[in-house]
């Protein structure tokens, strides 16, 4: 089946800089691309490695379910939270996951609008990753409440009590920001999938698979009209998603910035949260892409060029984050507020200083290695740097949430925070949920966008003659 004969703006032939890897390794034709991606799902047998990995993460996901069941049974007191540290792992994890969920939309929407061709092979799984990360994040606002069965009261719905939510609360803004983001991301992902699902439908041998892919493809036939509508819908969604990339984490940062807690009440939070989100998002993209391209042999489609670019984005956002830390520290000193200054001192020298210095090491120092080309070219080094950044970004949220709260205004109320096994269980459990979903995704869905990859080929260029045919 021939697709993608009609494109709006053919890519320019790439001009590679010396030593730069191409976005798509030469040698592919329209057929080979389709064939390769389709075969990853439909013809590749289920390997032992996949089963092993899936079972492992499925087990972890069940840890999450078990921990949540116990949580609902006993209450949030099974965690390490207390007064003064009213928020702990749950909020740390929430912010961490939402942050990770930024990369997908950024890659798909922002880079689409910016016409960055290299986004094409990684956008699909990055979007999936976004979706799953937001799903993991979405668990926490619900379960962290004292009475989760009433969490729906955060939504404005007509009710017999005659009360609305309280619109001055950043938590309420969060509800809107995150749910909007989740909706748009899901739509964006699904709309983008439709042409490829149709390809799957057409290639599938198994009648059940054929039925399911057919259903999901929603009658896509690849007609010019379909493509036209698809293009405008996709562009529209990209346009909608772009501001969300900025707004979601800005709103999440308001949870802290709007409060009066020293260490939270900072205007630098919105930009530095967004940068941090992209930072961790790209780290997660790399953590996923590096093994996937190896195990599924798609190095030719996810080339070193992708990894290099992602690493550069990480480096750039990492520098913004480092600037954020510096400014936070500077203003703590310069503002003249004794409370702010104390928070800074307490972060650096207090009982939880380890978390602060690990954060600086992980988020600021180690990623500087990415300046070195050799590191960017070494998949193993890149993989571990990304892991370190992910850990660092988790610690950043831990530092913000816990070290600010545990010693605030009145020394009489100072306390300590120690996470319990249930805190860890739920965190590890969401990792299980996330990777479990990722495993299913690479087995069941086209993890690389077929038609967009084909657009990268010179054959897809519409020549003047062809256009007149």
């Amino acid at each position, binding site marked *: 089946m021939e697709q993608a004969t009609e494109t709006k703006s053919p890519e320019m032939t790439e001009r590679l800089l010396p030593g730069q890897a191409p976005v798509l390794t030469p040698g592919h034709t329209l057929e080979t691309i389709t064939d390769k991606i389709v075969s990853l799902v439909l013809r590749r047998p289920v390997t032992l490695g996949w089963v092993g990995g899936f079972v492992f993460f499925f087990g972890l996901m069940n840890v999450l379910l078990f921990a949540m069941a116990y949580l609902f049974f006993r209450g*949030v007191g099974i965690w390490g939270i207390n007064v*003064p540290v009213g928020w702990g792992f749950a909020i740390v994890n929430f912010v961490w996951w939402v942050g990770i969920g930024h990369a997908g939309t950024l890659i798909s929407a922002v880079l689409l609008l910016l016409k960055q061709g290299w986004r094409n092979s990684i956008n699909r799984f990055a979007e999936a990753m976004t979706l799953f990360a937001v799903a993991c994040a979405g668990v926490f606002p619900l379960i962290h409440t004292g009475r989760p069965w009433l969490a729906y*009261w955060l939504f404005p719905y007509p009710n017999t009590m005659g*009360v609305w939510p309280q619109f001055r*609360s950043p938590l309420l803004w969060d509800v809107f920001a995150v749910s909007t983001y989740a909706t748009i991301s899901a739509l964006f992902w699904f709309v983008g999938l439709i042409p490829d699902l149709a390809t799957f439908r057409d290639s599938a041998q198994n009648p059940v698979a054929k039925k399911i892919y057919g259903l999901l493809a929603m009658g896509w036939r690849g007609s010019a009209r379909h493509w036209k509508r698809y293009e405008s819908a996709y562009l529209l969604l990209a346009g909608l998603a772009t501001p969300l990339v900025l707004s979601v984490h800005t709103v999440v940062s308001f949870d802290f910035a709007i409060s*009066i807690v020293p260490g939270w009440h900072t205007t630098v939070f919105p930009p530095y949260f967004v940068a941090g989100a992209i930072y961790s998002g790209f780290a997660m993209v790399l953590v996923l892409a590096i093994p996937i391209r190896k195990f599924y042999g798609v190095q030719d489609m996810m080339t070193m060029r992708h990894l290099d670019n992602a690493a550069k984005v990480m480096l750039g956002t990492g520098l913004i984050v480092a600037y954020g830390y510096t400014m936070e520290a500077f203003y703590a000193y310069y503002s003249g507020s004794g409370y702010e200054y104390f928070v800074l001192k307490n972060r650096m020298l207090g009982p939880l200083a380890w978390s602060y210095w690990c954060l600086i090491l992980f988020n600021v120092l180690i990623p500087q290695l990415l300046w070195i080309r050799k590191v960017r070219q070494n998949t193993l080094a890149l993989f571990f740097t990304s892991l370190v950044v992910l850990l660092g970004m988790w610690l950043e949220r831990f530092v913000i949430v816990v070290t600010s709260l545990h010693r605030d205004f009145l*020394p*009489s109320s100072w306390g300590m925070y120690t996470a319990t096994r249930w805190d860890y269980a739920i965190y590890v459990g969401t990792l299980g949920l996330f990777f479990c979903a990722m495993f299913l995704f690479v087995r069941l869905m086209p993890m690389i966008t077929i038609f967009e990859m084909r657009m990268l080929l010179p054959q897809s260029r519409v020549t003047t003659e062809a256009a007149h045919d």
Partner: protein
Amino acid sequence: MESHEGRPTKIEGNPQHPSSLGGTDVFTQASVLTMYDPDRSQGNSYLNESRTWPQTLDSLRAVAKSHQADHGAGLRVLTEATSSPSFVAQMQQFLKAYPQAKWYQWEPVNRDNVYAGAQIAFGQPVETQYDLSKARIVLSLDGDFLSSGFPGFHKYARQFSQRRRPELKSEMLRYYAVESSPTNTSAKADHRLHMRASEVESFTRALATALGAAQAGGEFTPQQKKFAAALAKDLQSHKGAAVVIVGDAQSPATHALAHLMNAQLGAVGKTVTYTEAVDSSAGWGKVAQLQSLVAEMNSGAVKTLLVMNSNPVYDAPADLNFLDAFNKVPLRIHLGLFQDETAKYSHWHLNATHYLEQWGDVRSCDGTVSFIQPLIAPLYNGHAESELIEFLTNQDEASSYLLTQRYWQQQHTGQDFKGWWDRSLHDGFVKGSALAPKTVAAKGAVPAQAAALAGLEIIFRRDATIYDGRFANNGWLQETPKPMTQVCWDNPILMSVGTAKKLGLKSEDEVELEVGGRKVKGALWLTPGHPEQAVTVTLGYGRQRAGKVGTGVGFSAYALRTSQSPWFVDGVNIKPTGKHFGLASPQGHQSMEGREIVRVATLEEFIKNPDFAHAVVEAPAAGLTMYAPYEYKDHKWGMAIDLNSCIGCKTCTVACQAENNIAVVGKEEVKRGRHMNWLRIDNYHEGSPDNPKTYFQPVPCMQCENAPCEVVCPVGATTHSSEGLNDMVYNRCVGTRYCSNNCPYKVRRFNFLLYSDFETPQLKFQRNPDVSVRSRGVMEKCTYCVQRVTHARINAEEQNRKVADGEVMTACQQACPSEAIAFGDLNDPKSRVSRIKASERNYGLLEELNTRPRTTYLAAVRNPNPELER
């Protein structure tokens, strides 16, 4: 006393009562919970088999009969110390019926030394009554007259706080404390001098000599000289307005010397008066009484022992081996509220009534007779001591009501007994029944000083919250942090920072204390202001049969306490076990970190600059908020707390707990930082840990005008009321805890787990029906007792008038013995709280945050002796 639907729920002081003046203490506040304690004994038993009351009476009748035959030879009664006129009369009847029987009284936290001191000084065990309302200089020698449990505490706290108002300027009272173990009383002192408990006597002797009151020897140590010189000068220049108060734990000689000093300083008749002893067996030491009983039991002279409301198996001095002697008695009968340690070793156990279930009378410290009137029928059909004694005397089943009334009818001389009786019951006390002042003449010389003690010393103290152990099963008291250490649910071994450093020990190290071959294990807690070379242990812990709450909590200091040295003993060996023993403290940090939290000045500074409280930090100008200001048409409630008056006794904390159905969470939850007290008293130390200044700061909800909690709640569960309160709507709360994070005062409390007991019927009875019982997942906090506000408003509306000033009292305010808390309508410029807030000392805690707190503080003013203040 507040009662709902026939259930007593909350105890209030009687403002007319001359020694309560409306104030209460932690024990009184918490006693209502003891009455409802589900672990209370619920029936009578013989050898652990239950018996009905008629069966019990049959057996008692037989006992009575057999002792009628032998005129009571071998019949012994042991009770706690009593001041009840009717019970004493009853016991006299009893002893008449059984001429050879004997009555002993035992009290582990006794006042033997007080009466022995009076005996030395005056040849009779008189009661010393202080009148601080006329005092200018107060010296306390290891005396804790501002601590719950000290006789006359309420009155002294009130008088002390009234005399401590800095507006009195040069008339303001100055207080010197010479102390061993730090207490909340000594924390209020302008000058503290620390020494081991055994050294106080020598200091007193030297001081008495210096004042010319006695030739008593003694010598000041070089460190004490400067303090003593300034003190002596101050005392002498305030003759007639100075008073020396001695603690119960100090030696008889110290007490005797204090009497001589008070006489020398012209205090007698002014700040000190003497009356007959309130205690019915004051002349005979409680330890001596118990010793006699033990001797009799050991000799086999005791055939039947009746123990009533006393627990000697647990709290007798260790050297008496009480249990061995007790077990030699052929018939042991125990009457008590609990199946406690003594009940376990008794043949018979009879369940007693709580004082809220029975009739009776009692003398307060100044001798005023108060009536005990029941608020509820006995929950478990228990019986009062008086009923049991009446049965044994006359085989008569008269009720405690009849017995009390009969006694007073006999005593009544005038006409119209019924009118008198009704009026007295209505008032709660007999007007004019305070003991008359007595003129006593000094007599006899003070004995020479015992040899000085050497080595590490143990100081025994009654516990600040569970007293001698009788409140061990009271969750409210167990969870109330001790005023000075802020530790709850344990009796830590207190030690100074210096001594610990020398011994290489730190807080929460488990150590073994050994003295005279007796050993206990407990956790160490470093306490600023504790004397060197000494440790303090409090009594009342380590109960084996207290009940579900108190059993096995802490260690029993009674195991180290002997009849010779009940209050302090030297030659202690301390040995770390190498283990860690975690203690629960809701306030882990007692330094202000240089922040303007408790604002303090000396009197001199205050006179120079009355506005000192606003010198460093000031509230931003009003109106700096995005939101329109609230308008208050009717009331605008507010509170002011005078930090100069607060004595840190924690009565308000327990009162709040009783009023507002606040749950008890237990030691482990407190350790995790999840205690639930709506009103806490912060305790800050300032200065060197050897001799710090200590400040108390009660912190309820500030009910901010610009409340940070209100804006962040996503569901609007905490909202501003039309009268200015930050209302908490439990039903609406989903439990995000954001409000708590954003509360700079951290006064919000969260039900992390299901803390309230919704099952136990007795505890359900105990609750205040006007206040919701909170379930898990819900935030809660101080509401300014909104249920009381509402009550007053409804009453006022019914009568078509406005709520008058003073009509609404919050539970904390009502309980406070020192009147530190004022509450009322800020819209009324004449209300007490408005007038107090007009003071220049008035400031808002963290007001620089523009929260505009509605609860404000009056800054503390110390009155140090310029000679001692560098």
